[in-house]
């Protein structure tokens, strides 16, 4: 199976294609890739929270372009629809609801920034060496339009129906979970009846509202 797959894959012979004479698609891919990397780096380092989310938009949009260049057209539009249209909007929503200030917020990064940098650099070094070593000579043949809506739909509903259905159940569970989580319990104090109010405590004392939220942790 694997061998047959590999055999059907692009040619493995070295020096079939040179890195020094890139095709047009490759140049575009590289340029967009640099933009994606740059905006991703800004997204994880900037101290302005909303700017981070907006740089994430650029990064994800660039990735959609990369998908297009890899002839995965349908996936690219799904990327735009779900990531740019929904996920980033949700993230922005979350940032704004957690009172993201305009300008820098000093506590965006935690103290272990340097450790994180070391880990990330190590991961990047390892992965890149590994990947370059393994796939230095592999060539993707970008013909045939394997990512059109018709092709994706066929493969999705002919071979991947069960995972698809399972995923829909997962989505439903996530929906229900999100609703349950974000519901506030109805704990409003019962409305005082006007008759009782008249005979009750003096008005001055009742002016302090009863707090329904627990005191903030310091």
């Amino acid at each position, binding site marked *: 199976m694997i061998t047959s797959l590999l055999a059907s894959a692009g040619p493995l012979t070295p020096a079939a294609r040179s890195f020094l004479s890139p095709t047009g698609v490759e140049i575009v891919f590289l340029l967009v890739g640099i933009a994606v990397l740059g905006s991703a780096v800004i997204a994880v380092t900037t101290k302005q929270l909303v700017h981070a989310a907006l740089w994430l938009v650029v990064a994800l949009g660039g990735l959609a372009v990369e998908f297009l260049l890899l002839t995965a057209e349908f996936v690219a539009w799904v990327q735009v629809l779900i990531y740019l249209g929904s996920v980033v909007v949700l993230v922005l*929503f979350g940032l704004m609801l957690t009172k993201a200030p305009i300008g820098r917020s000093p506590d965006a990064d935690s103290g272990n920034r340097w450790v994180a940098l070391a880990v*990330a650099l190590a*991961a990047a070094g390892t992965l890149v060496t590994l990947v370059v070593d393994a796939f230095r000579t592999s060539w993707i043949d970008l013909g045939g339009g394997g990512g059109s809506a018709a092709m994706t739909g066929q493969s999705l509903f002919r071979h991947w129906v069960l995972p698809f259905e399972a995923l829909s159940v997962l989505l439903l569970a996530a929906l229900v979970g999100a609703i349950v989580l974000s519901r506030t319990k109805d704990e409003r104090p019962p409305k005082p009846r006007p008759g009782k109010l008249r005979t009750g405590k003096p008005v001055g004392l009742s002016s302090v509202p009863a707090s329904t939220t627990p005191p903030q942790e310091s």
Partner: protein
Amino acid sequence: MHLVYPAVLAALLFSIGVYGVLARRNTVLVLMSVELMLNAVNLNLVAFDAWLRDALHAGQALTLFTITVAAAEIGLGLAIVLLVFRTRGTADIDRLTALGDPSEDAEDAEADTVLKGQAVA
């Protein structure tokens, strides 16, 4: 196209995501970094799908699934973050240590200050 380009791009993107997850304190920013890592995986899947010329298009189908899962994840994650923010008044991961051992907490806090001192120095 050389397979190396998308593969290296995905690896670097993943590492950036790793850095973001580890270095960020704001929960929403951590979630964003997770999205970056997921996208790196998606890029890999699509690239290898194109390389292998898979008849089943497993890579692209899986990418679609990942995107769906990411949408579900971000929805739930943000619901949790908002809930935490509402009850605690903060979305700072380092401060959400209510379930931790109090003594460890103190040590962590000390280590934190030491690290911060180093960072400042």
